[in-house]
């Protein structure tokens, strides 16, 4: 699979609807392969519809976020074994 043109940086505005912190600074561990890196570096598909973030090493889906036309939304991160939260800034 070729790498997509985007990475997790571009998803952060949309994910601010879900998380109260800057997601680019969160670190995820892939549930499939254990690769651990900042969310900013995940391979990201936008308007897929919605956002899909894949592991940069094994391409397994880590996070999905999508809205329907009537405004309902879904979010799942079953592809993340654990997310390390960014240190809260002063």
């Amino acid at each position, binding site marked *: 699979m070729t790498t997509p*043109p985007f990475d997790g*940086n571009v998803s952060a505005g*949309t994910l601010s609807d879900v998380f109260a912190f800057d997601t680019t600074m969160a670190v995820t561990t892939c549930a499939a392969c254990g690769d651990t890196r900042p969310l900013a570096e995940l391979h990201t598909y936008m308007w897929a519809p919605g956002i899909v973030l894949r592991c940069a090493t094994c391409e397994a889906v880590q996070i999905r976020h999508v809205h329907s036309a009537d405004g309902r939304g879904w979010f799942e991160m079953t592809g993340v074994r654990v997310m390390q939260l960014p240190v809260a800034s002063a």
Partner: protein
Amino acid sequence: MKWLVGTVSETTPETVSAVTVRLDVPDWPGHRAGQHVDVRLTAEDGYQAQRSYSIASAPGSEQLELTVVRLDDGEVSPYLAGDLSVGDQIELRGPVGGYFVWDGDDSRPVLLAGGGSGVVPLMSMLRHHAGIGSDAAMHLVYSARTAGDVLYRDELGKLAGDPHRAATVTLTREPGGSGWDGRRGRVDAALLGEVGWPASSAPRCFVCGPDTFVEAVANELVGMGHEPQNVKTERFGPTGG
């Protein structure tokens, strides 16, 4: 992160296909060099399109500047880089992202590598460096297709002789005999080694542009011994460099 309204105060062509849009955004909370905004356009029928654009202006500047390269098949860029007039309003959200930022609060050397429109957030860093009078050594390596595609060409040209900031532009598709007497070819380990710093200096590296450019340059840097955590990457869009 709530949506704000920005009013266009000025549009400045940068190249044949790129425009810098200056926006007045009341309640703008300020930003850090390297961050971006999400821009949302709403058509009369309610259809919405959203894209992200890096902030070109330095932190603390009065107005927000976005440099938009028009993609022929783009959904948003042709409007922003073609149809906007002074007084038009656009919705934007931000600033976004704390991973790809340079605050200038340490004196480590900084290597910036930009491909195509990837130079935009790096320009914010260069401008911030000047604005705070940083004495950290900063070098921008900028890959563009042709001389006509080079953004901020005059501003980068004025860096010659600057003691702390420098820029090296390399073109990948400039025709021979065109009068361009600068570098040609891709950003490779040789160029990075020539203008950058050894891994032992632990420079901060920021690489931005199309994913093929970012992949190649980031891998080169790590291959040269730079620690992966010192190499920050931002991939966006298919525009070439």
